[in-house]
């Protein structure tokens, strides 16, 4: 191959790699929480009986997820520049809104999968609607969609790399900075590839472990 490896420059720039890693993790967590919140709200609307709610859910899901994530990020960063959101927030908003559409579809499927008799039975026991949702319906839906949520979260970790285009100092951005400094192109990108593989694997394992336990406490 005739290529001489030199990993010293990477070690020399380890602070940059680590800070990029930290920001990737932070961005992924914020983005995932936002996506889950949007997904639960819109997914619940999509599974509702009221037609206007369902129409709203369909419009949100189709309107948002058929536009590239990159445009969502640029829209907040360039389009709504008058409100001057920090770049990190623009990327987090873009990730939340975009992945939220996918999460909404998951929640809708999960919620409609819970048999209607269960909420009827719970209502017959005198439970309020909100209590039924929180204690009976959501925990089952969460468990049902846990594997899909795991792949959604690993997708989100990978997608966070697009925040580099608006100069958020996450892994891909720092890789560019180190590459421009050292020209050790292969070593730089090999390093961040391994880090992404680790992050993706760990995050989906975490979700698979955590999500099914949601609501278990409330079962007492």
């Amino acid at each position, binding site marked *: 191959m*005739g290529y001489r490896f030199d990993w010293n420059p990477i070690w020399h720039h380890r602070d940059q790699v680590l800070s990029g890693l930290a920001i990737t993790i932070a961005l992924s967590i914020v983005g995932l929480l936002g996506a889950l919140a949007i997904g639960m709200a819109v997914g619940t609307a999509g599974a509702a009986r009221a037609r206007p709610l369902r129409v709203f859910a369909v419009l949100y899901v189709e309107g948002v997820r058929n536009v590239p994530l990159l445009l969502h990020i640029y829209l907040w960063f*360039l389009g709504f*520049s008058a409100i*001057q959101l920090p*770049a990190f927030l623009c990327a987090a908003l873009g990730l939340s809104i975009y992945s939220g559409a996918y999460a909404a579809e998951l929640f809708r499927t999960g919620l409609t999968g819970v048999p209607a008799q269960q909420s009827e039975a719970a209502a017959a026991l005198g439970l309020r609607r909100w209590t039924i949702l929180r204690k009976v319906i959501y925990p089952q839906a969460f468990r049902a969609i846990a594997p899909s949520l795991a792949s959604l979260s690993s997708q989100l970790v990978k997608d966070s790399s697009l925040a*580099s*285009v*608006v*100069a958020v100092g996450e892994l891909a*951005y720092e890789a*560019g*900075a180190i*590459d*421009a*400094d050292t*020209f050790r*192109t292969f070593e730089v990108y090999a390093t961040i590839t391994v880090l992404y593989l680790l992050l993706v694997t760990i995050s989906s394992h975490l979700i698979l472990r955590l999500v099914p336990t949601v609501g278990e406490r409330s079962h007492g």
Partner: protein
Amino acid sequence: MKRRYFLTLASLAPAFVLWPVFARADDVPDSVAAVKARGKLLAGVKMDTPPFGFLNESNEPAGFDLDILRAVAATIGVPIEFVRVTSVTRIPLLLSGNVDVVAASMTHTREREHTIDFSEDYYTGGQTLLVPKASAITGVDGLDGKRVAVQQGTTLAKNIAALAPKANVTAFRDYDAAWLALAQGRADALTGSLSILEGFAKNNDGFKIVGGLLSKEPFGVGMRHGDWAMRDAVNATLQDLWASGAYAKLYQTWFGGAPSEPIEVYPQ
């Protein structure tokens, strides 16, 4: 037997898909021969950096760097194809063979000489600051705590970090993004090469150049390490342009004025 045949065929399919791009490069690059064989020069230029390389009103690439490389293509005797690069991608794209030469307002530095080769310097600029007209910033001393936009992967980024260590510097991936950051008020100042900032200021009222020249930035055309044939071709082109007076005309067109630094012409 039949099964093995089937599987072998199946496993070869990816190789066929990938085949065209895995042509091995020679160990000692002679891009001029390769360019002639290919029939076109792949030229790396920026498209967001007026007046060196940018899109004009009709969205065609134009600029000083492009005209220099057009002359190089004419010397070699092939048509030219422009490939967009940014400060971050220009050297990797050169090394990976995506382009044969790069003229992308790139400062000729000793550090970069370790990785690529340079032609003679074809332009000498300097770094300065662009700020909104109403700004109180008058020079690097006033940058403490201010947000400064710059391009990632440039000498400019290193210089400003050294000159204004207390400034809050954000390095953007390309000039467009850095310039928009200033224009949108996300940054208090944009630092860059004088001619480039003049280009932005000329097209947009409301901004002024302050602080004088912070550094001297000689620009060179980049080619792969050891690609002497390409370097000779570029140097010969630059010297011919200078000797014939064409260089002065290009300079007048793009910068308005006479060249500040001559191009050295070697005896025949």
